[in-house]
């Protein structure tokens, strides 16, 4: 609900924010840095890309109500693709949890204007939702490991079906967002 927030400078919003909101902003930064650390430990070392990641994370933590966190998520995803090997191990699960935590913390900061304290019941319901989302990630991770363990050759049919699903999702997203934009 960024439009309810006052249109003042981000620094003003940071100053006026409640302790709870500062905690969420700190979580954005900490989780993004942890993700970068996972990439550093698990994959190749790219100092320049890591520094850029830190800067983007700082910007997202400073302006979580804007589209800066979208840039951060996309950047971290691309960094994961570039810098880490193709392995479905525990690091992948940790990275997925950290990426979702960044997104969730940004969502909770954007729930209202600077200075707002969220209802504890709302926070509890978001904790349950976060667990559901991560459980879905765990299921995909287990399925991926299961498929990898079978060591089946790549199938054009499966790839085509997956591509169709992804394209359907992209179409749904485009349709929904475009319709909402038209009002």
């Amino acid at each position, binding site marked *: 609900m960024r439009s309810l927030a006052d249109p003042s400078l981000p620094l003003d919003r940071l100053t006026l924010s409640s302790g709870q909101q500062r905690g969420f902003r700190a979580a954005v930064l900490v989780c993004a840095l942890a993700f970068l650390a996972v990439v550093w430990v698990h994959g190749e070392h790219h100092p320049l890309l890591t520094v850029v990641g830190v800067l983007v994370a700082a910007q997202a933590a400073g302006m979580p109500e804007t589209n800066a966190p979208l840039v951060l998520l996309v950047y971290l995803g691309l960094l994961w693709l570039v810098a880490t090997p193709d392995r479905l191990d525990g690091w992948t699960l940790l990275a997925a949890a950290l990426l979702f935590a960044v*997104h969730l913390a*940004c969502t909770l900061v954007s729930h*209202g204007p600077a200075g707002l304290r969220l209802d504890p019941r709302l926070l509890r319901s978001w904790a349950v939702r976060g667990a559901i989302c991560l459980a879905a990630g765990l299921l995909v991770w287990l399925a991926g490991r299961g498929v990898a363990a079978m060591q089946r050759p790549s199938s054009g049919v499966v790839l085509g079906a997956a591509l169709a699903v992804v394209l359907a999702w992209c179409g749904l997203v485009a349709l929904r967002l475009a319709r909402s934009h038209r009002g």
Partner: protein
Amino acid sequence: MPSTSAEPEDEAGWRPTASLVRASLSTALLAVLALLAGRPDLLVLATPLLVHAAAAFLRRPRGTPTVRSRLGTDTLREGDGTTLEVSLDGASGVEHAVVGVASRRWLAADPPSGFVSRRSTPTESSLTVRLPVASLRWGRRPFGDGLAGVLSGWSGYEWGPVRLGAHTLTTLPIPGRFDSAAAFPHPIGLVGSHPSRRRGDGYEFESIRAFRPGDRLRRVQWPVSLRTGELHVTSTHAEEDAGILLVVDGGVEVGASGGLPGAASSLDVAVRAAGAVAEHHLSRGDRVGLRVLGSVRHEPVPMSAGRMHLRRVLGALARVVPGENRDLDPEHARFRVSAGTVVVVFSAMLSQASVAATTMLASRGLDVVVVDCLPGDLDLGGSEPQFALAWRMRLLERRALLARAERAGIPVVAWRGPGTLDEVMRRLRRRAVAPGGRR
């Protein structure tokens, strides 16, 4: 209580939040990359975001909420509180509502930021967000203007913000403690509690005199009648009500007001003292009027009696705005005062205009009393030596003005709560009953 409805800032209705846009776009990108690069680990990264986006899409609300705001009460006393209620009807699909209200001086909201939120349960079709507020000082102030917005389930869509209209909150002064045992110099009227100078039904002893036709039997004074052999009765003073005009000097305010819990300015003392005197006399059945000096929009409150009239007087006191009109011309100020009315002027006596108005009233033959409302422990808010020097000069001028008032026969008393007017009223009454006294 009056309520106001709110209109959206724009007519866009429900819009996707930044959170939904982020989840759906990053999911789509990661999924495409996962397929193109053959990286199932990217699918694992995308899956939690995918679940969030899908759940948010499924909870897109259909209807449009309507927002109304109302105050629990629009009139309260200093230190009392009320609640601003913002109601959202047609709120099915709403999960979280946020209201932000502009803060106002002397109005303490809880929380102080003025932002409150409420989580809605899925079954609720109407949602009410409440913001408690306490008023710390008398006056009329707008309150409740701000913005309200709502979020759908899983923070997918947002609606608003809508602009909330302001309500006028009137805070009546909490009257200071006041009591008076002194009789009024010129009771006028038919009923009341002040002993009159004429004989009649009452409780205050006047004399024992010979019985006359028409005297009540219960007034017969038997011991004297038996001793003298002639029927005697006890006569009493009649009891009548009194008229009192309260004049509040609203042209000047000295000192920084700290509201109800803090220090009082001169105008705080004047308004609260006037309220206390009005409450005391109206509860005794007297007639009270009010005139505010230095106020442009202030209509005089005519002389009247009763509990409802107290509400009118306090409401008029709540509308006092200091320094609205410093160019008061006492020669043209009309005071509709009947003979016998006592005029009580509440002033810090720091302006020529208020002294001129006071002496003008006294010159018309009215009994005028000045209640000095300059607090002893005045917080002037400045510590520079020049400031202190200027204030000393101002006090010297004030001393001259007070001396001028006293030369005109106007008694000046400092406000000290109960008994403030007793000695003055006794003096005025003695003067009135003395041979050749004012009537």
